[in-house]
Each structure stands twice: as C-alpha cells, then as structure tokens.
C-alpha cells in the first residue's frame, strides 16, 4: 500500500510540471504582457521596461520559468490586481464556501441518485425508470446557470422561501471557526446561524447537484443492470440465498464500485459548476471571485486559480485511486 502511494505521488510530478509549463507559456502570451496588465494601457515604454526589469522579464526564458516554478512551490501565486491582496490568501479565504457548497451538492446527488438509479434498474421499463432516465438526460442538457436563475426566480424572488443571495443574512452574527458556515454554528452553539446558513445553501446546492445527480443516476442504473446479469447473481439466487442478501451483498455492493469512482471524480468537476452557480447566487466562494476576475481581466488570479484547481483535481484523482484499491483488491495486484 505504501509503495502504491509513493509510486502514485511520483507519477504526479510530471503531470504538475507539464501543467506549470503550459501555465508559464500562457502567462507569457498574455495580451501586452504582465507589465501592461499591471500598468494599464497608458503605460510609457520606460515604465514597461522598469516593470519588466523588476519582474525579471528581461531574463532568459529558462531563468524566468525556474523563478515561476519556485514561486509556485512557495505557494506564491502573485497579487490580485482587483484587491491588491496575495492570490493565495484570497483563495484560502473563499475556499471553505466552495467546499461547503460542493459537499452539500454531492450529498444531495448521492442520497437521491444512488437509490433512484437502483430502483430504476430494478423496475426496468417502468414509469420510474423512464422518468429518471429522461430526467437525467434533461439534467445534463440544462445550462447550470439557467437552472440557478429559474430556481432563484421561483423560490427566492417569487415565493420568498429561500434567501436569494449570499451565505448568511445581514444581522446574523456568526463566529467563524472552520469557515464552513453550517458547521461553525453547530460548533459555537449559534444554531440560528446554522439554520440561516442551511437556508442559504439549499438552492445553490440543488443547482450544483443537477449534473452529478444525472450522472450518478445513469451510472448506478447501468451498473446494476450489468451486475444483475452476471453468473454469480444467478448462482446466489439458485443456491437459495434470501432476496435481501442477494440484493444488498451481491448486487448493490458490486454495482457501487464504478459509482464510487465517479462520485470522487465528480467532486473535482463540481468546481466548474460552482463558478456558474456561485455567481448567480453571489455565494462568496471562489466561484464568485473568479467571475469578477474574468470581468476585470485579473490574470494573476486566473492563472493561480487554474494551478489551484489542477492541484486539487490531481489530488482528488489520487485519493480516488487509493480508495479504489482499498475497496477492490484486484486493483492492488496490478
């Protein structure tokens, strides 16, 4: 197991290096270069030269790349041109909100998706099957931000059931411990804050859950259908095992293997959806921040964000691989 972890960690190095080269080239391709991004369009040539010297841009490319690498290794992603704060600090400040939203969305997707997919497969061709298959097709085809706009329009603006923006209502005084608003309230005993945070979380989480939910329903359904047809299920039934045991231990457990992998990896891709969802609900996580960074052409933030999500994505991939080898012994042999 330890050897597997070490091997996988070593395999990460070329991937991250390759990414850093791409990002470095990307930074150098920025319109007008970093100097005019900092100085604006009315910079004089002398100013540009001064900034270039200060940033080391007059050095050979490989020296620049080495410096770039060193800065990334030190988690120095530059300074946001919007806020003037270090990009890394901006991210760590906002990341808990995005994590909270993603976890909530994933819980919804799994709790609803796995049983729905299982039932759809068991009653193949029935109304539930048809409804969940067509529902998941539509779910994949709805632009996330449109779903967000519709839900917000109906349940917040028209009906007023849920708050329409932010993470906490104004006037709610919550102590921040972990940065996860729902958890903080429980830890500090401020249950009104927790309740408020949950109400703020529901609509964005449902929106963000739409795509993983659709994927999980379809995967569970396909996986269960495949497992039901296997020889060992017939064996289990013919040797007189109780239906409950066959379903629980034989069908569900085997069918869930690919679904678990999918769940882990979908968590990474939730970040894309989070950018869109957060910006509709002005949720205050990394997603909303990126939206404004795009509008303001805040390149240090954009570059840092890509490196940041790449790292998270790669790490999640690694964790999923390791989890998988724990669940499925066959993987370990290879």
């Amino acid at each position, binding site marked *: 197991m330890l050897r597997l972890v070490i091997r996988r960690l070593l395999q990460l190095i070329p991937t991250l290096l390759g990414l850093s080269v791409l990002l470095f080239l990307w930074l150098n391709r920025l319109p007008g270069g970093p100097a005019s991004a900092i100085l604006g369009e009315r910079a004089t040539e002398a100013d540009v030269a001064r900034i270039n010297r200060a940033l080391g841009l007059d050095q050979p490319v490989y020296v620049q790349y080495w410096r770039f690498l060193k800065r990334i290794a030190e988690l120095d992603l530059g300074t946001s041109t919007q806020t003037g704060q270090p990009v890394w600090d901006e991210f760590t400040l906002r990341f808990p909100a995005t994590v909270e939203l993603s976890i909530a969305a994933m819980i919804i997707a799994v709790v609803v998706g796995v049983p729905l997919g299982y039932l759809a497969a068991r009653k193949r061709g029935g109304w539930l099957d048809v409804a969940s298959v067509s529902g998941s097709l539509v779910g*994949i*085809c709805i632009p996330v931000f449109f779903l967000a706009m519709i839900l917000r329009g109906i349940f917040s603006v028209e009906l007023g059931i849920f708050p329409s923006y932010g993470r906490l209502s104004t006037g709610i005084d919550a102590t921040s411990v972990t940065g996860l608003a729902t958890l903080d309230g429980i830890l500090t005993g401020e249950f009104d804050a927790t309740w408020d945070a949950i109400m703020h979380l529901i609509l964005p989480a449902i929106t963000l859950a739409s795509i993983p939910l659709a994927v999980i329903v379809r995967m569970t359904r396909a996986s269960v259908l495949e497992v039901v047809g296997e020889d060992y299920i017939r064996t289990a039934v013919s040797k007189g095992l109780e239906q409950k045991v066959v379903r629980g231990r034989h069908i569900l457990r085997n069918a869930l293997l690919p679904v678990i992998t999918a769940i882990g990896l*979908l968590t990474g891709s939730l970040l894309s959806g989070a950018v869109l969802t957060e910006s509709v609900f002005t949720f205050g996580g990394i997603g909303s921040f990126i939206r404004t960074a*795009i509008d303001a052409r805040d390149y240090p933030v*954009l570059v840092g964000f890509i490196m940041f999500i790449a790292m998270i994505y790669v790490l999640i991939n690694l964790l*999923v691989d390791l989890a998988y080898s724990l669940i499925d012994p066959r993987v370990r042999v290879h």
Partner: protein
Amino acid sequence: MTTSTKTAKIDRLAELTAQNETTSGASLWREAFRRLKTNKMAIIGAAIIAVFIVMAIVGPWLAPHSATALTWKSEVLVNQGKFVDSPRGGNWFGLDHLGRDTFSRFLIGARQTLLVGVVSMLIGLIVGAVIGAASGAAATLGGRLGQKIDTVIMRVVDMMLALPSLLLAVSIAAVMGQSLTTVMIAVGVVQIPIFARLLRGSMLAQGSKDYVLAAQSLGIRKRRIVVTNILPNSLSPVIVQATLSLATAIIEAAALSYLGLGNPDPAVPEWGVMLSQAQRFFEHAPMMAVYPAVGIIITALGFTLLGEAMREALDPKLRG
C-alpha cells in the same frame, strides 16, 4: 495514469466497434442504422436536429423583423422595470431589453448557435483525430520508438483530460479576449483530448482483430493495413462522440457567454449571448431568458438523444 470516469467512458466507446463481429464498416453501419430506425430516442433526437438545422439555414430569411433595429424602443423602459417579454401580436416572443423582436433574434440566432457548435466540434474532432491517429498508428506499428511516441502523446492527452473542461475553456477565452472565434476555439480545444484518446483506443482495439492477422499473413505491409483497414474501421465511435460533443459544445458556449466571454457584436444574436443578456432582467422579464434557454436545452437534448442511441446501437452489450 489515474483511472477516471471520463477516460473510462471514452475507452468503453473506443472498444465498441471492435466487439462487433462484422469486419466491414459498411454493413456494421447498415445494421446499426436498422436498429436506430426502431429506436424512439434516436427518432426524437434526429427530428429535433432536423428542425434545428432547417431553422439555422432558413431562419434568417424567415425572421419577420431585423435583429438589430430598435423598433419598439419606446415601449421598453428598463429603468422603470417595464418590459414586454410575453407574446403579443406581431412579436411572438415579445421584445428584448432594447425593444428588439425576440422571435426574429431567436430565428437568426439559431444559425450562430449551430455554427458555434459545429465549428468547435470540428476543431476538436480534426485536431484530436490527427493526434489520436498518430498515436494509434505509432502504437500499432510498434517498435520501441512507436511505443514511446504513443506513451508521450497519451500522457499529454491524459493531462489535458484531467482538467475540468469548462474551466480550461474559460482560461483560454480569458486570454484571447471576447469574440466569437474565442468561444469556438476555447470550446473546441477542450474536446481535442477526448477525440484523441477515443480514436487511439479504437485503433488499438481494431489492431488485435483477426482480420489484421489475416491481412498480415497475406503479406500486406502493416503500414498499409493501418491506413486502409484499421483507421476506417475505427471511425464509428468517433462519429458517435462527435454527435454527443455537439451538445456539450452548445452548452459550454452558452456558459462562456454567460461568463461574459461570448460574442459582443449585437448584430449577430446567438442563443448563449441572448441568454446571458437576459439574466440581468430575469426578475422583471423572465421569458426573455426562457426562449433562448429552451432553444439550447432542446437542441442539446436532440444531439444527446441521437448520440446515446447511436452508442447503444453499436454496443453489443446494451442490445436487447
């Protein structure tokens, strides 16, 4: 490399045609087509696509009004929250925030939407297929060098696949600035690794088939077999993926527009751009957003339905 659903899905699709018993591409497709004709999903999908394509071709000529003329400007008062977003005589889809006819913009926008989808899919398909074919050919022809080339190419492809596609597209678009070309390139580039991995996998699966061995024992050179047999036989999964990619391309183009990276030219309406413009007025004029959004959803659904049905028709395991 790491296992992932994305790659697993691509690899499964790649192996499909190789699992079929027929060796000639034509009869395989004929059989698949026969199955498709009886599939409700495929028929609905194809019908939606047909309507969409006809609309994209003739829409701009059928549009009753200009896409840019601010004909009813005086009737829409944005500052006072006065909108005309529901249907009325002469303006079937109402007016937009500048007093333009939404129905005309919708019809004209169909062509742009199709264009964005097709061009970005083609960028991904062509570049991806070239990379995939090179990698697949190198691996099939074998030799130490061939294996090495294949490994290097696939490492790069897997690295690209490891990034969330929308965010990759956003970063490309953010650098290139706001334009229609940007959207098409950004959405297209994201598709490249998918097509590359798919075609390579499909070629490898074909390479281990009996007919390749037969051709080899007849004394035909391997290089020739790759070009005349393996490559053509490997294309069906690519066609399936191309259909599915059109759906994702249209949705992702809309997302880029929403993030403010779409085409800024008001003379060329596009559903994604219309939707992103409508979001600011959503509380007062929700229908303004609903029309383009429904257009996008139904079109994407059409391509998804047809693509999924094609995949099922080709997949021996899913056949009833």
